[in-house]
C-alpha cells in the first residue's frame, strides 16, 4: 500500500480545468484514509462551489490516477459540502501561484 505522501503526490497531478492550481494546493482535499487490510483508499474532498462544472470529472480523475499510478484496488472519492470550502484552505504554494498573497 502506498504511503500518504505518495497519494498526495498523485493528487497534486489533478486539476480543475478552470484553475491553474492542483486540487491539493487548492485545499480541496479534506482527508485521505488508507486501509491496508482491504487495500483501499478513501479520499474526502470538496469543490470550490456547488455549481462547479467539474463536479464529477475531478473526483473521477483522482480515483483513476490513484488506482493506475499506485496500483490501489479500491479507491473511494467522496465529495462533501460541510465544511464549505473557502480560499483560506489554499496552500501557500497555491496562493503564490494565484497571486493571492
Amino acid at each position, binding site marked *: 500500500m502506498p504511503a500518504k505522501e505518495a497519494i498526495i503526490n498523485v493528487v497534486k497531478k489533478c486539476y480543475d480545468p*478552470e484553475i491553474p492550481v492542483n486540487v491539493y494546493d487548492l485545499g480541496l482535499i479534506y482527508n485521505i484514509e488508507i486501509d491496508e487490510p482491504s487495500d483501499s483508499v478513501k479520499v474526502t474532498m470538496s469543490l470550490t462551489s456547488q455549481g462547479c462544472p467539474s463536479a464529477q470529472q475531478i473526483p473521477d480523475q483522482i480515483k483513476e490516477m490513484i488506482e493506475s499510478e499506485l496500483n490501489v484496488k479500491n479507491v473511494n472519492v467522496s465529495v462533501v459540502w460541510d465544511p464549505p470550502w473557502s*480560499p483560506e484552505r489554499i496552500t501557500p504554494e497555491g496562493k503564490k501561484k494565484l497571486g493571492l498573497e
Partner: protein
Amino acid sequence: MSNSVHQLYQQAMLAFCEKQTAQAIAHLEQALQLDPSYPDALESLGVLYANVGRLEEAIQMMKRLAQADPDSIMAHTNLSRFYQQKGWIDEAEAEQAEARRLSWKAELKSKKDQTADDVGARHAPPLRSPEEELRQIERRIQTAQKAIAFDPKDVLGYFSLGAVYLDAKRYIEAVDILKQAITVDPKHSPSYASLGQALEMCGQKEETKETYETGIKVATEKGDIIPLKRMESRLKKL
C-alpha cells in the same frame, strides 16, 4: 472626485430608474469626461452600453475599469458576459477565472481585516473619553443626515447613518434607517447585512432571518462576496 461628477452619476442613476437610458448614458459620459477613471461610472456606463447593444463600447468601459481598479471583480465578470455574447468563449472563460481569483482575494483580505479588527478591539487602549466618543458619534450622525438631505435617493447616506447608529448601539434607530436604505435601493446588499445585524441586536430573530435570506439573494445576484459571506455566516449561527 468633485461634487459635480458625483451629481452627474446620481442623475444618471435617477434617469436609469426612470427608464431613460439615453439620458443616463449622457450623464455618465459627461461624468467620465470630468473624471475618466471614476469606477462606478465606468461600470454603470459599460452595463448600459451592453444593454443597448453597444457591445464594443461596453467592453472598452470594462477594460478601463479593470485598469482604474485592478481588483474590480465586476470588471472581469462583465467582460466575461460580454465576450460570451460575442461568442468568444476562451476569452469569456479567462475573464471568469480572473473574476473568481479576485473574489477569493477579496474574501481572504476581508478575513484578514476582520481578524485584525478583533485583535485591535481586544488590545487597543481607549483613545477617547466617553464624552469625546459621544461628540464623535453626533458629528458622524450630522454628516450622514446632511448627505441624506442633499440627496434623499442616495442609499449611501442611509447606509452610513445606519452604521453610525450600530456603532453607537442605537439599534432601533439603526433598524429604521437601514429599512429606508433598502427601500431606496433594494439591491444594496451591504444594507441588508447591517440591517440583519441591527435586527439581531433587537432580538427580532424571524425578521433577521428573512433579511439575511433576501440579502443573500441580492448579494449573490450582484456578486457582492463580502456581504454575502457575512450574511451566510450570521444566518448559519441563527
